């Protein structure tokens, strides 16, 4: 890990010689240099310095579309640990590798007073076997409507939107997608159950999403089989196993709009480690099913988050 970071840093120093868009796999060299520096600074800084006052890990990690959540699904909690009158920001990079594809994501999020979360993410999807690359930008906002996962009987409830725009929609159009941009709307609820399993705390999340996105938007929006919105369900569990470790599972239902490219529901099993309030690393085993005609895509996922 440390070696990888140093490599990533030294590789970036001659900024104009940076290999651009050449390599098909997203590597750590895609991390903005600033993030690398932030990670080092955050790992070295005193555990409580500058962080918001909410408890460790209560902002979850960054999900694949840039919102605070698990790996695949947004949760009702907001990014970072800001509470009343506080602001927190997070930056994250994620790399997922399944049999025939790789997905990279870089994102930033801001949390204002633990009321509003605003996020920006860029996804880069490489078709390793088929060839080609798809990219999409996602602007997200999440409003905490009510509650707190720790202190409220009914947990915390948030309403979110994700505005997605493909960088180049040719492939999606060719597959039969109706649009190259779209908006997801979701309602999420999160609740922490103290000492729920073997004395450990259990976090439960349920998200209801209205979406037209094909493979999260990477293959466009709407299709020949269905153009309208679908209502899909996402759920996840997280068990706080040992100090600073959480393990869990996630499930994310998906629409199936394209005749030529059947789409499956997503699943994963994850482990997250919080080094301190600033740095967390999440690893997961993904089962993404069929993607763009290639069956049974499984693989690994690694996500690094820095919070200020």
């Amino acid at each position: 890990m440390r070696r990888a970071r140093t490599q990533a840093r030294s590789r970036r120093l001659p900024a104009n010689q940076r290999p651009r868009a050449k390599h098909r796999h997203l590597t750590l060299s895609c991390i903005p240099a600033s993030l690398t520096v932030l990670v080092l600074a955050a790992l070295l800084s005193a555990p409580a310095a500058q962080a918001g006052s909410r408890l460790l890990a209560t902002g979850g990690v960054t999900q694949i579309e840039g919102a605070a959540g698990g790996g695949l699904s947004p949760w009702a909690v907001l990014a970072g640990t800001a509470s009343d009158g506080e602001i927190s920001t997070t930056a994250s990079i994620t790399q997922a590798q399944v049999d025939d594809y790789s997905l990279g994501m870089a994102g930033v999020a801001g949390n204002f007073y633990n009321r509003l979360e605003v996020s920006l993410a860029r996804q880069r999807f490489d078709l390793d076997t088929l060839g080609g690359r798809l990219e999409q930008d996602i602007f997200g906002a999440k409003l905490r409507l009510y509650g707190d996962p720790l202190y409220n009987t009914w947990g915390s409830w948030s309403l979110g939107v994700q505005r997605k725009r493909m960088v180049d929609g040719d492939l999606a159009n060719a597959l039969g997608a109706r649009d190259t941009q779209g908006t997801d709307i979701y309602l999420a609820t999160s609740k922490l159950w103290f000492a729920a399993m073997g004395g450990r705390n259990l976090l439960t999340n349920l998200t209801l999403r209205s979406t037209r996105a094909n493979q999260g938007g990477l293959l466009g929006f709407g299709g020949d089989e269905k153009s309208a919105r679908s209502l899909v369900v996402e759920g996840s569990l997280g068990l706080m196993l040992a100090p600073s470790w959480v393990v869990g599972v996630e499930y994310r239902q998906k629409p199936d709009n394209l005749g030529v490219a059947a789409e499956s529901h997503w699943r994963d099993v994850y482990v997250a480690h919080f080094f301190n309030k600033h740095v967390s690393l999440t690893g997961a085993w993904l089962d993404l099913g069929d993607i763009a005609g290639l069956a049974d895509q499984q693989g690994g996922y690694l996500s690094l988050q820095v919070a200020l």
Partner: protein
Amino acid sequence: MTTSSLIALGASRCAALRHAVLRGTSYPVTSKSLALYIALALGFSVLGGCAHTPPPPEGDAGQERAITAEAETEIRRADTTLYTALGGKPVIDDVVNDFLYRIADDERIRHFFVNTDIDHFQVTFATQLCDISNGPCDYQGPSMARAHQHMGLTEVHFNAIVEHLRAALIEKGVSAGPRNQLLGRLARLHDAVMLRQP
């Protein structure tokens, strides 16, 4: 690879698969997925069922009584071994002692305690923990709403208190089970403590 070859590949691989496995199973909110949703929702409500119902809206004093009463019945209903599991009086006293040092070191909250009789607070707080964990104590001090009224507490302060108590429990070797149970019971006092903040 070009777009058309991707589609060709996709189409050929797909055709068989779609018929074999995917048709009818991957549409959102089909009967199968609906069942999952209902199961999840039911799971939620069953879990939620052991929690309390919202207090009747009958004014501040009524609300306070309701919140306190409901928190207490809920706590009474729970098992009686938490106090023992925590380690009884010696451990609770140690934890409270450690907790007070942490408060004193935290400039976000220490100012609340400048006029407080710390010896008195130490005893009443320990009694409260003993009582709430079904130990042989009866906390007879003011209600949580009254004890903290108009202090100007925010979530920041409440989180700080929870964090210090959690750290103190870990420091004094209380294991995850009883530690989380105790924190869970204290979390239920949140609404009462925060009831009368400006």
